[in-house]
């Protein structure tokens, strides 16, 4: 049985696409055949983050409109042969997606894939609604910042009322918190909401904390999912997240400040 994961947040710029690319690559590297779909029709970016922007021929909307087959549109990742990308259309708008069309594509993917990662656009319009509608699991990406936490809570309300599972009265979508752009130093100074603060408000199962890291920008610059940068904290954090999602019991990291000596302070690590 395929498992459909939506990566969502409500708010833009919190790291949904970075997360989608990282966890899809992580699951694929563990040997699970994984597809990652960009639902941001008109503003596609997942192809850039995964470094396959020049290999896009057909897209999600072409498949829905039966202008191309799913196999023609899927792009196989060059680094990991278990990972496939279905890019969004750049020339259409969000209304090009229909519930029936999305459902059909997901059904077809589910025949051969183990995990289907849906990269949701920001906002609560059609693209975002369809990205979460068919989901089994939701990764709620949140920054330790008031507007992001508020929007995440709003998304949780939508997940529990407007999804297929909610409408059919099935077991609800499993919701997980991914707290990204976390800065333990600022938390310690009282300048940033802590993991506990955010959990107090959202009451979600914490899948992982992704620390603010320069390696995220470096990774997107080069079109490499940050999870492949095994030396970076963000990369390690995403690896942990994938392991935890797959059932491994791993202690949380990167929540506390590094204990750096003078030497460490002088030569700041990434």
């Amino acid at each position, binding site marked *: 049985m395929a498992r459909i994961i939506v990566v969502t947040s409500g708010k833009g710029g919190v790291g949904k696409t970075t997360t989608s690319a990282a966890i899809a690559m992580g699951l694929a590297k563990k040997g699970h055949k994984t597809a990652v779909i960009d639902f941001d029709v008109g503003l596609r970016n997942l192809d850039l983050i995964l470094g396959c922007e020049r290999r896009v021929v057909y897209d999600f909307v072409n498949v829905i409109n039966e202008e191309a087959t799913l196999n023609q549109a899927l792009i196989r990742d060059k680094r990991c042969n278990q990972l496939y990308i279905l890019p969004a259309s750049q020339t259409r708008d969000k209304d090009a997606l229909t519930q029936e069309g999305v459902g059909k594509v997901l059904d077809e993917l589910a025949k051969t894939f183990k995990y289907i990662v849906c990269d949701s656009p920001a906002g609560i319009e059609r693209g975002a609604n369809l990205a979460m509608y068919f989901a089994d699991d939701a990764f709620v990406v949140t920054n330790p*910042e*008031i507007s992001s*936490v*508020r929007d995440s*809570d*709003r998304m949780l*309300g939508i997940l529990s*009322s407007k999804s297929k599972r909610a409408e059919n009265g099935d077991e609800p979508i499993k919701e997980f918190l991914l707290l990204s752009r976390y800065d333990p130093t600022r*938390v310690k*100074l*009282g*300048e*940033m*909401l*802590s993991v506990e*603060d955010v959990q*107090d*408000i959202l009451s979600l199962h914490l899948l992982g904390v992704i620390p603010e890291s320069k390696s995220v920008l470096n990774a997107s610059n080069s079109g490499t999912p940050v999870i492949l940068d095994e030396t970076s904290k963000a990369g390690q954090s995403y690896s942990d997240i994938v392991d935890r999602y797959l059932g491994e019991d791993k202690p949380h990291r990167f929540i506390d400040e590094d204990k750096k000596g003078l030497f460490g302070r002088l030569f700041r690590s990434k």
Partner: protein
Amino acid sequence: MSLLDYFKTTKPNSAKLAKERLQILVAHERSERNQPSYLPQLKQELLNVIRKYIQINQDDISVNFESDDEQETLELNIVIPEQPQS
């Protein structure tokens, strides 16, 4: 700021403030989310009926919906002005 001040001042804890604001806001938004969608219209229609007899303002009527595991309560509160208007 003198050097002494630097050691004395305790920095304002803005994260604490953020959490307090969020807790209030999120609680409010969650309660609204769980309300039936007919509530605003119900309020407006009640207001129209009451205004046939008494002049009251929009703010003088409050309709609250609460639910727990056992029951759902619809609470209606109308403040009638002290001076009867002619």
